[in-house]
């Protein structure tokens, strides 16, 4: 079984790019299965089902969606195996840029929208810096020079990363992406995350609604960067 984790901010084109790549994988004789993780609601599964491949949805509800995905990787792999799949594709909810739910042996793909401007690759953090490949979308909306500057910025943030220019509408780049997925080694043994998730747990995680500082406990970071532990 191969595993691919596709992350990226909402609206960056993860689903569209993935749909084209799934078609290419099927055409090449592979059996992909898809798990879409979202927070409250999604209709992406209906889009994926049109491709006639196994699709499952996980809604994280009260749990952080990236933590939820990590916590459920074993179940996803079992489910994909039961569907007779040889590649598990996991599309993340794509909210926080800090978590980067990439296991070391999976292919980690960060989808990033060129129209967000050349500074965005520097803002994204572990989601981009620990990815194996960055997929640049919406390049048709800017000039070639702007695409090339954006590409340079991605390489500044993640020098070793493979860059694929894709278009979710025309399907440009999907063949290259599918080839990369198909060539990735199978997962084996114990998997470890590439980057630690953010520090937990604060009082907000356990349901505190009051805003004032006096009600909060945990490892807390102040606006000026000072970090402290408050509590028992």
């Amino acid at each position: 079984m191969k595993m691919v984790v596709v992350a990226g901010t909402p609206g960056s084109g993860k689903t569209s790019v993935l749909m084209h790549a799934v078609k290419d994988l099927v055409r090449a004789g592979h059996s992909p299965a898809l798990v879409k993780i979202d927070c409250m609601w999604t209709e992406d599964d209906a889009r994926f089902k049109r491709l006639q491949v196994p699709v499952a949805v996980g809604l994280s509800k009260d749990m952080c969606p990236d933590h939820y995905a990590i916590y459920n990787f074993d179940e996803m792999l079992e489910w994909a195996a039961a569907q007779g799949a040889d590649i598990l594709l996991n599309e993340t909810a794509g909210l926080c840029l800090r978590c980067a739910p990439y296991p070391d042996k999976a292919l980690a793909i960060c989808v990033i929208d060129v129209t967000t401007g050349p500074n965005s690759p520097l803002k994204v953090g572990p989601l981009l810096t620990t990815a194996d490949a960055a997929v640049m979308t919406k390049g048709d909306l800017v000039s070639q020079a702007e695409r090339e500057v954006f590409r340079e910025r991605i390489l500044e943030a993640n020098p070793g990363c493979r860059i694929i220019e894709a278009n979710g509408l025309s399907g440009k780049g999907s063949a290259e992406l599918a080839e990369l997925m198909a060539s990735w080694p199978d997962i084996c043994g114990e998997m470890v995350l590439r980057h630690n998730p953010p520090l937990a747990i604060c009082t907000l995680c356990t349901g505190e609604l009051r805003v004032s500082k006096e009600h909060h406990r945990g490892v807390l970071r102040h606006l000026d960067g000072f970090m402290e532990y408050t509590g028992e």
Partner: protein
Amino acid sequence: MSQSQAIIQAMSQVICEIIKPLALTIQGGVDKDGNPDDVLEIEIARGEIIGIVGPTGSGKSTLIADIEQFALGDTPSGRRILINGQAPAAELRSDPRKKLVAQLSQNMHFLADMSVGEFLRMHAKSRGKDPGLADKVIALANTLTGEPVNPAFQLTILSGGQSRALMVADIAVISDSPIVLIDEIENAGIKKQEALRLLSGEGKIVVVVTHDPMLALMASRRIVMKNGGMTKVISTNEDEQRVFKDIERVDGWLTALRETIRQGEVVA
């Protein structure tokens, strides 16, 4: 003109690592209904300007996109693009340092929130060129457009004409690839012939999508598009070139009038 010529001359001294291709071949695919292109194959040689003409929606931009990404039968048109008779290597398709194609697209505005100077220096770096070329790009752009561009300007405040002039100059100086693709330069509010002459440079292959009679007749041949397909290739002839001289005169007259009005003077 003399200023831009001087800059171009200086540019030609810049060592270019790219091997110039000798020939670009477009192998026919299918139109929007899946019928094969009437033009089965067209070979474009070094130094040639070739036009792409046809009504709006006829597939001109799609053909440009096929060339830009070196289609290998993997785009909706099914066309194949060859360089010197062979399918180009994957790295030529993506790595800007090795890219054979420079493209001036229809998108006239910049979205990047950076200053003009910073952006151009970054672009030169991405192409493996000297960041000092940024000043030359700006000087050249300012020969093409009315209101001068300043390196400290934010890209996002530039006018359409300024953006286009900057993109043209950027392609002539920084991108400097042996194949140049131009999508509808006439919409730009810049000196279009001068821009086309700058972009065509020495020994480059230039493919220009156009509705403009003058630009179309500056091309030695033009591909006619219909319903997504390449229907025929027309070579320009002596009659057309006589017409071209007339258009050039009319265009010069209109340009002078436009300038008079822009400068707030009365047309005599």
